[in-house]
């Protein structure tokens, strides 16, 4: 049902960890009334699960829960991203539309498709959301949002570094939350920069223990599951509290730079997604959609740089991550880097995850001391050779 288009009264969006701040920032700059969906709670999960297909991926179910709750608060439309497959994300809107229609919920799904015809098309689809504004206004709103995003991700990266070193557990998270609050309130570019700096100062002021050498844990996975702490039992925070320094493979700013940035701004070089896909080739010779292939590349890159272990998060039934996990078995063996994978859904318990993360960090710490003292032979030269021969075989094929 297409209504005569005059912009929307109120718009909501899917909840995705700290990034509500960014979505709200852009939409408000576009002059739209924003309904921020409530934080993901057990009620959100219950609603989403109840009304979604059983084996649909968890992000879809979460979205449905968010949309129902936001509709109750008066939202008229949802802005979300689409896709061209083969990962299911590209068809979320179609399925969610049916679910909402059958529930009698009048919420229009506005899908931003990947800009196959250039980034002007992307700006145009954003412009349609607002009741006023030229493309220039939209570009400014997006630039504002991106500046906030970079500042926000910088705070999170810093928090990952500080948290394992904090003297009192929880002080980093408190500082981070305050930094996020300041960023959320910043309404101009200058204010964003100031809030970003203030946030960094807060984190820098957290009392830390000197000379601490935390184990390094890489965090990879399907992006939604990595970004939203409510569905991953606060993995990053938990790892930090267990004394591990988290290295997050992808934050939203990275994802945007890789997927949405127009030509000259698209990320290149050795932090680009293309680079990680290339690293994965000896094990996974083709894209499998989603972040499957890049995650394999990230693991290899982390292993090469001496990261001690990797935690891999994915929704239950996520196809690209099932393929990634399958080949990561061999990557883990070949590079001697432990990889702990969680396939998560509504049945995953927080306690179970906490226990496994504790055991994992424990394992990594003991491996590191054993390797240092020479008591344990960490796979080295002989394993690399096997990997290298596989690499040659692939290029030769």
């Amino acid at each position, binding site marked *: 049902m297409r209504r005569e288009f005059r912009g929307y009264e109120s718009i909501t969006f899917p909840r995705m960890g700290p990034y509500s701040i960014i979505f709200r920032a852009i939409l408000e700059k576009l002059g739209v009334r924003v309904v921020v969906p409530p934080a993901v709670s057990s009620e959100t999960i219950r609603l989403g699960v109840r009304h979604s*297909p059983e084996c649909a991926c968890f992000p879809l179910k979460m979205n449905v829960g968010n949309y129902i709750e936001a509709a109750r608060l008066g939202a008229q439309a949802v802005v979300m991203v689409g896709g061209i497959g083969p990962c299911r994300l590209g068809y979320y809107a179609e399925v969610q539309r049916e679910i909402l229609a059958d529930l009698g919920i009048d919420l229009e799904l506005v899908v931003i498709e990947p800009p196959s015809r250039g980034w002007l098309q992307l700006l145009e689809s954003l412009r349609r959301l607002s009741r006023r504004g030229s493309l220039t206004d939209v570009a400014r709103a997006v630039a504002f949002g991106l500046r906030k995003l970079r500042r926000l991700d910088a705070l999170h990266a810093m928090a990952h570094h500080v948290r394992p070193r904090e003297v009192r557990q929880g002080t980093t998270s408190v500082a981070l939350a305050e930094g996020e609050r300041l960023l959320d309130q910043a309404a101009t570019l200058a204010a964003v920069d100031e809030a970003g700096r203030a946030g960094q100062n807060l984190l820098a002021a957290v009392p830390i223990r000197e000379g601490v050498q935390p184990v390094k844990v890489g965090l990879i996975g399907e992006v939604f599951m990595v970004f939203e702490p409510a569905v991953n039992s606060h993995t990053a925070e938990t790892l930090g509290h267990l004394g591990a320094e988290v290295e997050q493979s992808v934050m939203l700013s990275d994802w945007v730079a890789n997927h949405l940035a127009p030509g000259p701004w698209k990320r290149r070089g050795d932090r680009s997604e293309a680079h990680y896909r290339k690293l994965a080739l000896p094990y996974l010779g*083709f894209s499998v*959609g989603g972040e499957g292939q890049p995650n394999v590349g990230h693991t290899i890159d982390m292993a090469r740089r001496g990261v001690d272990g990797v935690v891999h998060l994915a929704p239950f039934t996520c*196809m690209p991550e099932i393929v990634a996990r399958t080949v990561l078995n061999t990557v883990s063996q070949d590079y001697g880097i432990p990889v702990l994978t969680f396939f998560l859904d509504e049945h995953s318990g927080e306690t179970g995850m906490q226990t496994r993360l504790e055991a994992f960090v424990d394992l990594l710490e003991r491996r590191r001391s054993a390797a240092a003292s020479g008591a344990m032979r960490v796979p080295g030269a002989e394993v690399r050779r096997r990997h290298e021969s596989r690499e040659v075989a692939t290029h030769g094929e």
Partner: protein
Amino acid sequence: MAANPVVGVPRALLYYEYGPVWEGFLTALGAEVRVSRPTGRATIDRGVGSALDEACLPVKVAYGHCLELVAAGAEYLFVPRVFSVEPRAYSCPKLLGLPDMVRLAVPDRVTLLAPLIDLSRGNTSRAFRHVAAETGSALGAGYRRTVRASGVLARGITAAVRQGPGMLGAAGTELLPRALRPWPSSGSAPGTRIGVLGHSYNLYDRGLNLDLLGKLAALGVSTITPEGYPQTRIEAAARFALGKPLFWTLGRRLMGAAYLMTADPDLDGVIAVASFGCGPDSMVVDLAMRLVGRRRPDLPFMELTLDEHTGEAGFLTMLEAFVDLVVRRRAG
């Protein structure tokens, strides 16, 4: 090359779409083709033991077939990477990654033949020549054989995609094995017709689906599957039934068939078969169910989920109950 190389072809997944084409192709390259035996309990167990727990049953079955071929001495395994057979539509990610996953599950001494089949930019002879060249060179086939094989592949895949595997016989390529044809009815409930939706590798693999179609036939029901409809009608129906074009080729066929089934006045019920954990089906079967519910609320619809734990007795009970319901509705 000296003796004909022995190439194992797993009787799983896309074998049920293009199997006869693979066999013709490899034979034209001078290989001795060995197709694995039909799925048995041992095949499933082997596959379950090797594949990731989260993988869907058809992928586990494919592993089982590959491992059986290796155990029987195949030097080569043909596991093509079927990325796309039409513009803007693809296979599911697990099929895209299948060669890599199988590669790590079989011993290094086995050579995996995994040419990329990519027709997303059009069904061009160059695309097929590339596949033939890659596979031919791995098998040591000469130029003439490779060119001939390229033609076999092109004609076969084109026919299969355009007309659906059910029509492969009509296209002049190898006839489909008897097991792939729609089942006739017998016995106590003549005239009861049930539409069965599902991917070919779920519907026609009797070991994987506990002989679903055979059981329905034994209950006196005649069935029609997506392969029983002309592919052109299915394509048109899929375009009509879906808002946004669906980017999974097999999912499109399922939706198109679902639509055609709702338009079929002689159908008494619909069963949708999906494997537990199947990504595309988690959404497509849901959409199909809502479609059938909207267009034909009078048509009984049942969703059947397959996994390696499906018990024969419970499965048969569900089928019996559904057929009972359908027969009673027909009578009353």
